[in-house]
């Protein structure tokens, strides 16, 4: 018989106790292994960054990751974008009655491995179970705390005309991996999500003394949404060179087939960095070896993102609207 989550697992009784002990305790970092109502933290000195995010991805497991890895890496990456070293996470799980325990164990193992990779400890958590049909297998919410290591604030309002725009790697792998898994597209070779921690790259930029005016991770809505938000917040005009934007060939081909634009696809291990021109070379030297590129610059002018095509024509880069749906032909 397949072991499955039952409503009683969320009831607070012995079933719940056993589930926590068997599956989840491995995640917590209390040396005594004793559960308590709240975690008490000792953090290194400095300003504290705090963020939270919910994770509802379908399918729960996909090439290159799963919801567990996403929930740790995604929240740790949000901290990194504030120039903060990720340190502690909370984890709330909403499980749907009927979820296979074997799947839950895999997700928990993945959470633990990702936490280890990101250097964060999961220090507090909560588990609830909802009736069948009222959840989508697993919903996860993680909140994260980090300590800011950037000497200056990293913020959209620090963006200046003349700044340069870089991306940390090629775009769209996560979006294509999820679309392929969701719609049963048999991509050959299969494409894995780019889901990965961003702090190591940010840390190396800071260590090299690169002044970071702004950082933004390119999650839902992709490069287009992120840059649109930044240009709007900064009240400045961004000009991109389309052929400088790195896109892997299988991503470009799949987008072509389905009618998507790589700049609209989600990423889970990529960010855009805005740096002053005198720091461009240092940033480029660190990001280019990992697939990154200089993609454009910031100009005075109306808040918009313009893109120059390889043919010398220009268009606006706008955020995608609504759900991304494969086109008919």
């Amino acid at each position, binding site marked *: 018989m397949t072991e499955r989550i039952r409503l009683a697992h969320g009831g607070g009784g012995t079933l719940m106790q056993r589930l926590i002990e068997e599956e989840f305790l491995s995640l917590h970092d209390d040396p005594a292994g004793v559960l308590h109502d709240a975690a008490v933290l000792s953090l290194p000195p400095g300003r504290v960054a705090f963020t939270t995010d919910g994770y509802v991805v379908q399918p729960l497991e996909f090439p290159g990751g799963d919801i567990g890895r996403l929930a740790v890496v995604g929240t740790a990456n949000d901290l990194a974008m504030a120039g903060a070293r990720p340190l502690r996470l909370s984890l709330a799980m909403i499980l749907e009655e009927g979820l296979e325990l074997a799947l839950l164990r895999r997700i928990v193992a993945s959470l633990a491995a990702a936490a280890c990779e990101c250097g964060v400890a999961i220090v507090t958590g909560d588990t609830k179970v909802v009736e069948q049909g009222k959840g989508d297998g697993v919903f996860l919410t993680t909140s994260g705390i980090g300590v800011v290591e950037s000497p200056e604030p990293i913020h959209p309002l620090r963006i200046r005309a003349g700044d340069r725009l870089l991306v940390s790697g090629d775009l769209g792998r996560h979006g294509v991996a999820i679309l392929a898994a969701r719609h*049963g597209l048999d991509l050959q070779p299969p494409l894995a999500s780019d889901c990965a921690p961003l702090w190591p790259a940010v840390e190396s930029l800071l260590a090299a003394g690169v002044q970071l005016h702004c950082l933004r991770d390119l999650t839902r809505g992709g490069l287009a949404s992120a840059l649109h938000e930044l240009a709007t917040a900064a009240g400045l005009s961004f000009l991109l060179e389309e052929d400088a934007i790195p896109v892997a060939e299988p991503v470009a081909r799949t987008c072509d087939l389905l009618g998507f634009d790589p700049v609209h696809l989600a990423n889970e291990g990529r960010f855009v960095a805005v740096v002053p021109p005198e720091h461009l070379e240092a940033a480029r030297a660190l990001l280019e070896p990992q697939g990154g590129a200089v993609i454009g610059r910031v100009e005075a002018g109306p808040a918009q993102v313009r893109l120059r095509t390889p043919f*010398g024509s220009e268009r*606006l880069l706008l955020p995608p609207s609504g759900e991304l749906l494969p*086109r008919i*032909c």
Partner: protein
Amino acid sequence: MIVADTAPTVASLAAELAALTTRPWTLMEVCGGQTHAIVRWGLDQLLPPGMTLIHGPGCPVCVTPAATIDAALSLAARPEVILCSYGDMLRVPGSGASALDGSDDLLGVRAAGGDVRLLTSPLQALALAREHPQREVVFLAVGFETTAPATALLARQALALGVPNLTLLGAHVRVVPAMEAILADPAVGVQGFLAAGHVCAVTGLAELEALVARRRVPVVVSGFAPQEIMAALVACVRRLEAGEAVVANAYGHVVRHDGNPEARALLEEVFMLVDRPWRGFGRVAGGGLALRTPYDQLDAYRRFALPDPAATPEPATACIAAAVLQGRATPADCPAFGTTCTPERPLGAPMVSSEGACAAWYRYRRR
């Protein structure tokens, strides 16, 4: 990106076009895929002064009648029905509120509990029907001659296997009759066409040659990549400047003169030509495909006793889709463009599909 490699070719084609052009020609690209590429890559910015490209009606999502969408909405609201279609059909608004929660598109019906599934291939509908023998699976089958053969294959297999719980809500359309209707309208003023390469890959060139013989305009079969579109424009203007009304095939590595005979035979076997109302366009003689006997037993209109969309008038709307689809207006001429009409809340179908002219302008030109 891959297309960047074609920049030198595109630049030299643009120069050739400029050198060739002596008059302000007006051309129409028929296919929505071409419209999207033109706006996406800004190819219209590379044209000689005075040359106009009109975006044609070749977006099957855009021209599917509101009454067909209404039929799909009413079926999707029934508990026994699994309604499935291609992705961008799920966002097309019908003529008003549906039975389920007042939703006016299939995504809304799905959010309100309707069982609406997205397919990437029609044969997935067959698998769904066999997986759920107690449910009624309805495939909203749209598209030009490009997707019609796949629907025909589905119909043939469904009948051969005797699948009792699968029906087709058919809205397949044909391109050439619409081109004929455009040329018959003196207000439009199209002097030459870029024809849809993928459609011709199925149908071949004979029907276009008959059109050219009747209407005396050059037609160039075109691909969809920037350099293919530019090459087709050069070929078309060359014919216009020389006063030659011929069909030229600028997509020869894909399109053969006789098309795909196997696919054509399949279409012939399963479908017959009918007059069909096109949304925002009116009735197009011979502009639709309908299931012929014995495949008509798969007809969802018949199975569920739905009203014939051909008999239902188009709803009144603020949308100027008709003028846009006929090339009499650009999306930006519409007061609703980007204000009350957006891809999230489309008033008309050209704002829905990425191949619709309004959606393409919204995506790349919105100010």
